[in-house]
C-alpha cells in the first residue's frame, strides 16, 4: 500500500513501537488434516511460521508482535502432512493492529520463501503459536506443490474454479 490516511495512524505510538497485530485470513476452507500457516518476515528480515486458528467457519486468525508501521512481507500456506498444498502470493504491508486478507491461492512456483530464522529470545511474539522448525517440518519444495495442486478435480471441488 503506497497511500495511507494519517487519520488512521495511532498517534500514541512511535514508528517502531511494539504492537500486537491480529492477522486474519477470510474465505478459506480447510479439509480434514490440513493446517493453515502464515510465514511472515519483519523489517529486520526475521521470518516466522505461525499456525492460524479458526475464528469461524471460513476465517482464521493468529497474533504476533510487530514494530508499528514497519514493512512486513507475508504469505499464507495450507499444509497437509507437512507438505504444502496451496499458498498465497507474497504480500507486503505495514505493521498495524490488524492485517486482514482474503484467501487467494497462487500457483506461481517461482516465488521462493524467505529463509526462516530461529525466533529471537527477546521477541515476545506468540511463542505458543510458533511452529517448531525441525528438519522434517520444513515445507517441501514448491515444484511438489504444483504437482499436488494440479489435481484439477480437487481444485474445482474446493475452490469452485
Amino acid at each position, binding site marked *: 500500500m503506497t497511500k*495511507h*490516511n494519517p*487519520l*488512521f*495512524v*495511532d*498517534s*500514541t505510538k512511535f514508528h517502531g513501537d511494539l*504492537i500486537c497485530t491480529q492477522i486474519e485470513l477470510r474465505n478459506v476452507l480447510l479439509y480434514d488434516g490440513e493446517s493453515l500457516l502464515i510465514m511472515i518476515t519483519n523489517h529486520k528480515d526475521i521470518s516466522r511460521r505461525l499456525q492460524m486458528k479458526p475464528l469461524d467457519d471460513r476465517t482464521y486468525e493468529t497474533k504476533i508482535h510487530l514494530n508499528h508501521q514497519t514493512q512486513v512481507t507475508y504469505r499464507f500456506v495450507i499444509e497437509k502432512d507437512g507438505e504444502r498444498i496451496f499458498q498465497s502470493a507474497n504480500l507486503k504491508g505495514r505493521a*498495524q*493492529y*490488524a*492485517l*486482514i486478507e482474503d484467501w487467494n491461492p497462487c500457483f506461481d512456483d517461482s516465488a521462493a520463501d524467505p529463509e526462516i530464522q530461529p525466533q529471537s529470545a527477546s521477541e515476545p511474539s506468540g511463542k505458543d503459536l510458533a511452529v517448531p522448525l525441525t528438519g522434517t517440518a520444513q515445507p517441501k519444495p514448491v515444484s511438489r506443490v504444483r504437482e499436488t495442486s494440479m489435481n484439477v478435480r480437487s481444485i474445482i471441488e474446493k475452490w469452485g474454479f
Partner: protein
Amino acid sequence: MSVVSVINQKGGVAKTTTAVNVAASWAKQGKKIMLIDLDPQSSATKAVFADRDFEKTIYDVVTGQATVNEVIVPSEEFGFDMIPAEIMLSGIDMQLAAYFGREQILRRKIEPVMRNYDAIIIDCSPSLGLMTINALMASKDIIIPICPEYFSLKGIDLILQTLQNIRVGLGYRVGVRGVVITRYRDRRVVKDVIDKVREKYDLNIFTSYIPDNIAVEEAHHKHRPVLKHAPSSPAAKAYMQLAKELWP
C-alpha cells in the same frame, strides 16, 4: 450505558433527525439520555435550541477550554441533555493534528459523565475528519441512516471501509447496530434499493422504516421532537417503534 454514533458520510440522509428523535423517544421511555452534536453545521443544536447562543460548546471541551460538565445543557422540550456544537469545529482537525492521542480525546473527555446516562448518542458530521474518528473511537457501535436511493450503497461502503481502517490502524473494533431506512416512500425503486442493501451487506436493517413525512420538517421548525409535535403522524410512530428496536 452505551455510546452510539449516528453516522453516514453521505449528506442529507436524516442523521440529525434520527439522532434527535431517537434520543427524544428514549427519553420519553424514562431513560437518561445525552445527545452530543459533533457536526460543525450544528443542525442538532439548532433543532433543539433554535438560535440560542452558547458560550461553551463541544469545541471547548475537545480543546481543553472547558470540562464536559460545563457544557451540558438540558432540554425540557426534548427530555434529554445535550452538548451543543459550533462552527469552530470545522477547523479543529488542524488544531489537533499533532496532539498525542488525538483520536481518543472525546472518549477521555466524556468518560467522567458516562455513568450518569443510560445512553449517549453522537450526531456525526458527514465528513470524515478527526471529530468523526473521535466519535467512532468513543462509540460501542453505530447506526447508519440511509435514504433508499442509488448513492446510499456507496455511503455504506465508505462507512464500512472507515470502520475497517479504524480496526487496522487504531486497533479498535466498532460494531454496526444496524441500518435505518429514512425518507421511505412506497415505490418500486425504493424497495429495489433496500433489497440490494440486504443482498450486498451482512447488516441488520431495522424493520421500522421512517416515512417521508412533512411532520418531521414541521417539528424541526417548532423545535420539538416529532413525537410531541404530531404524535399520531406516521413519522412519530415510526421513530417510537425504531427507538424500541434500537435500545441495546
